[in-house]
């Protein structure tokens, strides 16, 4: 049977987390779904959640006054959406718009931050894993900025 606990336990992001910590996470988690075109979050809004994408694609966008919304990255199945909930001032940095039907697990930020404060071992584990996500995004952004496919005679 598909339970939140099993989904979290088997997700690569939470791999090898101690069972009691998985239980704490389950207390903050819920199943969510979004329709195509729906915004999961908007730049500047308070980051009250983060998401494990289970199906579908999400475009991270930044709106520009002259060129309209620009997609900076697409996230898909297995990806984590959102690290803003963990780092002050807990505001979303981008818009996240669904490119199709998206199914995800949402984790409540206040709930999880409280549990991380109460259990620093859990907090450190979460911080390490989100640190990895942030580094991956930073590296990908740097590669994008390198513009490696540009033609150089």
């Amino acid at each position, binding site marked *: 049977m598909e339970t939140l606990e099993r989904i979290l336990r088997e997700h690569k992001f939470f791999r090898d987390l101690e069972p009691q910590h998985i239980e704490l996470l389950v207390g903050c988690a819920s199943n969510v779904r979004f329709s195509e075109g729906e915004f999961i979050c908007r730049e500047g809004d308070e980051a009250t959640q983060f998401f494990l994408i289970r199906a579908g694609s999400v475009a991270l966008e930044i709106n520009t006054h002259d060129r309209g919304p620009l997609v900076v*990255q697409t996230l898909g199945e297995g990806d984590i959406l959102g690290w803003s909930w963990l780092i002050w001032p807990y505001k979303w940095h981008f818009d996240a718009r669904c490119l199709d039907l998206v199914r995800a697990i949402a984790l409540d930020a206040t709930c999880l931050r409280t549990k991380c404060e109460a259990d620093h071992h859990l907090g450190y584990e979460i911080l390490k894993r989100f640190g990895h996500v942030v580094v991956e995004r930073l*590296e*990908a952004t740097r590669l994008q900025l390198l513009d490696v496919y540009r033609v150089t005679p």
Partner: protein
Amino acid sequence: MALAAVAPDVLLPRPFAITRYVRDTHDTFTIELEPADGGGPITFEPGQFNMLYAMGVGEVPISISGDPAKPEKLVHTIRAVGPVTKAMQAMGKGDMIGVRGPYGSAWPMETARGNDLLVIAGGIGLAPLRPAIYWGLAHRQELGRLVILYGTRTPHDMLFRKELEKWRGRLDVSVRVTVDRAEPGWKGNVGVVTTLIPRAGFDPVDVVALVCGPEVMMRFCARELVNHGVSPDRIFLSQERNMKCGVGLCGRCQYGPTFVCKDGPVFSYERVSPLLGKREL
């Protein structure tokens, strides 16, 4: 290679006529060639290249982008970046090009038998990989999963768009395309090609990965593959260097202890990882 071992005609171009010219993108085009000297076709293995000569202008190494099972159609996909390739860009059906080859090492297609085949292309790097994809499609029953990941600068720069769509439509092939920069109307993935690797769905133990694109892209892809458990001896990269003779005589393409023209262009990551990213090499 000893000088005496080189056949006397190895540096002599054969005349080939352009029988088909297709403009792929704003700066990339594909030509099909047939021998004009009455000789037979050039048979080749996926990953090999020819030296193409624009009469009176100069010669450049260009990978073969056609189907190895159809050598009678010699196909090259070329980006117009310098005087020689720009001269070729201005040619048309019936024009003549000098061809010598094929040269260089090939993608290890036999090693892929019985394994997953993962093809990762960046930009025009899809052209040297297309023969390997044709091989994979022709030997589909002998492979595990066949996965194609393709990253390009913008949707506008995408190569072989129709073929990619055709391959994507097959149930036995997984194709994922991403662009570094989206354009209005682009509904596909945005992000560098390395971000597709974790979602590609291959067996890291039983996979053969072929990677071709800008060197920095190959470096990061190879690293990501290793991070996902792929052994360095199962990752293959196609290197690009300035070449002159194409047969290991002139030394122009020296790459550490090797020559790209005769020891490469295809190398295992295990062999070249110490050289990748080294300055002034």
